[in-house]
């Protein structure tokens, strides 16, 4: 893997070079003293990751990021800066994937880089890779987007209401979690609960981000009208609720339940990315599913050379979302492939997706067979019936609620 570090302070680069000397076997590293030099080096040979300082003379970090995004869209862009102002954060939201704050300890730096790249190879289609790393936002349903904007513009906006709206939408949740998990906020733990993320970021910041920086966006309804996005939205929410219910059934901690919910909400985020960016190709894949009964995953692979699971996981990986989310998205169809062999959000999301897809909240495909191998490996083979009931209850209550409205 090739990395390039950019900083105007040579001592910082030397320090990094020395401390990362032990990684030399895995990483091929270059150190550039300025943005211009970094771009020269990247021109010669592509890099997988760029880590840059923010304030530099001549070309600063955000300018460099914009350049890299334009010239080398597949490169994962990380910021490592001693700057901590809100203004800097706003400027960085769009062009960079993750933000690390100086002084950053070496282990965290390594972990961040490793995790951002861990699914790098999962997604083979480099064109899609470029699309995903170029993404600044995941579009939301116009209705939901308008709700947030309206609430933010209201005379008395409430953090709780905003958080509730955001926590029901995959696109917004993903973006909020990206921000909350960046070092800009000075929080050094993984945040998987969007409500917590919203209150951490704060209402004023959210307002500035939504209204000025446009961290949220909405689908062009005309373009995607055949893809039944509202159903996908319901499916995601139902899966999220069901995954949490399963975690609750398993007497998991509150954090785990939240993680399961969010992982469930985000498990199909790859669909949003593909629909938002390659709607025509995706429609072809959907047509294959509808007309020929081809499983969605296969149809996607056939038409797009990648699956929504891979795309979603890749996106969340480079955005620095908690690893459980990334895994849950990546392996929600076949958790036995995942490295974890015990109950985790992958397990809950997989089961929830499987049971929910059998009910009224399926999206595109009703065929999501349960991965019995994974359940056996995790020692949960006897849970199927109970979980099915839990999920059906959720599905029914959501259906009732929907009908009641």
């Amino acid at each position, binding site marked *: 893997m090739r990395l390039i570090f950019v900083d105007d*302070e040579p*001592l*910082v680069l*030397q*320090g*990094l070079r*020395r*401390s990362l*000397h*032990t990684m030399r076997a895995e990483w091929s590293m270059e150190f550039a003293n300025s943005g211009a030099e970094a771009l020269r080096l990247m021109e010669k040979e592509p890099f997988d990751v760029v880590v840059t300082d923010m*304030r*530099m*003379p*001549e*070309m*600063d970090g955000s*300018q460099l990021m914009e350049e890299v995004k334009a010239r080398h869209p597949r490169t994962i862009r990380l910021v*490592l*800066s*001693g*700057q*901590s*102002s809100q203004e800097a954060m706003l400027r960085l939201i769009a062009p960079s994937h993750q933000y690390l*704050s*100086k*002084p*950053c*300890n*070496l282990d965290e730096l390594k972990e961040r880089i490793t995790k951002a790249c861990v699914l790098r190879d999962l997604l083979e289609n480099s064109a899609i890779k470029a699309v995903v790393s170029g993404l600044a936002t995941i579009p939301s349903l116009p209705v939901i987007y308008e709700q947030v904007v309206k609430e933010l513009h209201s005379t008395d906006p409430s953090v709780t209401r905003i958080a509730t709206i955001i926590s029901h939408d995959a696109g917004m949740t993903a973006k909020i979690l990206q921000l909350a998990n960046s070092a800009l906020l000075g929080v050094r733990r993984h945040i998987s609960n969007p409500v917590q993320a919203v209150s951490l970021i704060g209402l004023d910041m959210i307002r500035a981000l939504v209204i000025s920086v446009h961290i949220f966006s909405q689908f062009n309804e005309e373009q995607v009208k055949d893809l039944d996005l509202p159903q996908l939205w319901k499916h995601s929410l139902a899966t999220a609720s069901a995954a949490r219910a399963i975690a609750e059934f398993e007497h998991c901690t509150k954090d785990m339940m939240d993680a399961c919910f969010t992982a469930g909400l985000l498990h199909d985020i790859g669909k949003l990315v593909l629909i938002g960016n390659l709607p025509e190709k995706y429609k072809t894949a959907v047509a294959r599913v509808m007309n020929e009964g081809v499983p969605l995953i296969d149809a996607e692979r056939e038409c797009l050379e990648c699956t929504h699971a891979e795309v979603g996981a890749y996106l969340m990986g480079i955005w620095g979302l908690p690893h459980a989310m990334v895994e849950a998205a990546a392996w929600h169809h076949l958790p036995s492939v995942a490295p974890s062999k015990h109950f985790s959000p992958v397990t809950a999301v997989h089961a929830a997706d499987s049971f929910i897809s059998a009910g009224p909240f399926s999206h595109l495909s009703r065929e999501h067979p349960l991965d019995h191998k994974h359940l056996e490996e995790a020692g949960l083979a006897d849970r199927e019936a109970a979980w099915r009931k839990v999920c059906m209850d959720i599905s029914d209550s959501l259906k009732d609620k929907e009908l009641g409205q």
Partner: protein
Amino acid sequence: MGLKRQFEIIVITAAVGFLVLAGFDMKTEHTRMLDEKRQQAQTLTDLAYGLIVHQYQLEVSGAISRAEAQERAVTAIQAMRYQNGNYYWVIRLDQPTVVTNAARPDLDGQDLSNYPDPRGKAVLAEFIKVARQHGSGFVSYYWPQPGEQKPVPKLSFVKAFVPWGWIVGTGIYMDDLDIVWRDKAISAGLVAAISMTVLLIVSLSISSSIFTRLHSVVERMRSISEGHGDFPGRIQSVVDTESVFRHVLGGRDEVSMLVDGFNRMLGEIRKRDARLQQHERFLEQEVHKRTADLQSVNLQLEKAHEETEVFLEAMPSFLIGVDANGRIARWNRAAENIFGVSKKSVLGRPFADCGIKWLRADMADEIARWWKVETYHRCEDASFEKNQKPRFLGLHIRRIPAAIKESAGFVVTGADITDRKFLEQQVNQANRLEAVGQLAAGIAHEINTPTQYVADNTTFVKSSCEPIMQLLVLCQNMRHEAAAGPISPALLCRFDELVKACDLPYLEKELPNAIDQSLEGLRRISWIVKAMKEFSHPGSNEKLPLDINRAIETTITVARNEWKYVADVVTDLDPSLPSVPCLQGEFNQVILNLLVNAAHAIAGVVGDGAKAKGKITVATRKVDDSVEISIHDTGTGIPVEIQPRIFEPFFTTKPVGKGTGQGLSLAHSTVVKRHHGQIWFESAVGEGTTFHIRLPLEAHAIAATA
């Protein structure tokens, strides 16, 4: 008596007169007609008489005999007729016997002495009597018309012809005359009656038209004179008759003109009245208004007075009025509160004895000075004791001009500024902290960067330590083995492995660097922390000798993050510069503001470091009795049009949120007011700006207050 009645009397009188005249006229006519008849009867009688005389002359002449003559005469008379068969008769003079009667021959020769008329008159005797007495004369009597039986009034003229003893006569029947006269009278009466009627109608209608209108005029005038406010409408000047008359007469009568005139007058009066009323209303309104104005002015005055009192009572400053005799005339609520002395207890007492415990030893002299103040005097350092604690006052003393009050005293206003003094100190401190806060992000960056590489290097050192220690231990083992005999190949092999594993040449080369750079990082951190500490040292409220050069270097250090991306800072500091009495904190603030401004000005030229960096030059030197500091930048320069304003508070050209517009204003007040120095600048757009500060070496006599 009304004019109408008078007019009626005139008309009636005229009518009566007319009637009388007509009657008289008729009477005259009757008499004339009678006379005419008499004349006629006389003439006719004379005619017959002449005939007799002719026959008599014939007798006298002897042509004929008396009898013949008489015969001839009678025949002739009998034949004579006139006017519808009227006739003559002859009677005897001596006796009432008829000689001849042409109408009634049957009476000829008869004695008619017993023949009276219906009124008993012996007609023939009467004839004879008149003829005998006067020779001739008229006799009126009743005699039937020829062929009639009924006697009717008759007037006859008789004339005696003495030679023959005859009386000849003829008569007019009066009823003939009366009939004619009656006819005449009737037609005359008719004419008179018609004329009268016409006269009456005309005069009455005229009078009616005149008097109706006159009456209206009168009524209206009465109504007006009786003061019935409103005017009735116009008088109808054209009644029908009048219009007829006008038409007939082809003009307007005086009444019409009177009415018109009256109407005009009425109109005029009405107009005038309206004007008068208007005027009256206007006057009334004006009076009301003036009265109201006066009242409101009065009220306002009263209110103003009350307000003034309220203001005086409400104002947070105390107000003490002292009259010419030095006695207290005013003492408002604030004074009560601030000094804890009630108004009641203090009014009228000498000011010197008002119960304020002045803390200034020379306060009596100060107060004495107030009497010499012409208009205004300020006393900033008056303190007094309240509740065993000193309080500070800012006093304003104003003389009351003699013109306003006979007794020209003075007014002392002021406030307890103890809290303000305390606040000022706090604000001062807060300002410094704010400056520190503004720098905080930059300073954090300045610290975070070296911390990053210190940590990285230390990590490297730590990770290197383990293989080195292993090597050292191995070396130690090898040393032991070497002491015992040759070193085992296993150890040598192990040594080579370790050396290779830990990349010894790399360690050898990098470890010293890592340690050096860590130390350098730590030095930088401690340097900036120290500078920060020095910079933000609260300092003292007094001016203390300050090493200007050092203070400048400190400030350049703390502000490094503000300028390092856009400029290099070059210092040209005079090492022999003497210490300058300064308020350290405030001085640092000034230098910081100027440095940051310089950096911003250069950023305006070089952008965010896209072009070559600019240059900031800071120089110090001694000039006469002062020290001059100049800060030059190669920035955008200050446009001429805003140059006069840059020291104004809140004036800023930076975008909202970037600058408060306070920096240069604070710098100015710090240098000029607090240090009695000077600050000025030279600037050229496109070339840059140089700010100069000159601080006096001798501390100014007046101690700066915090």
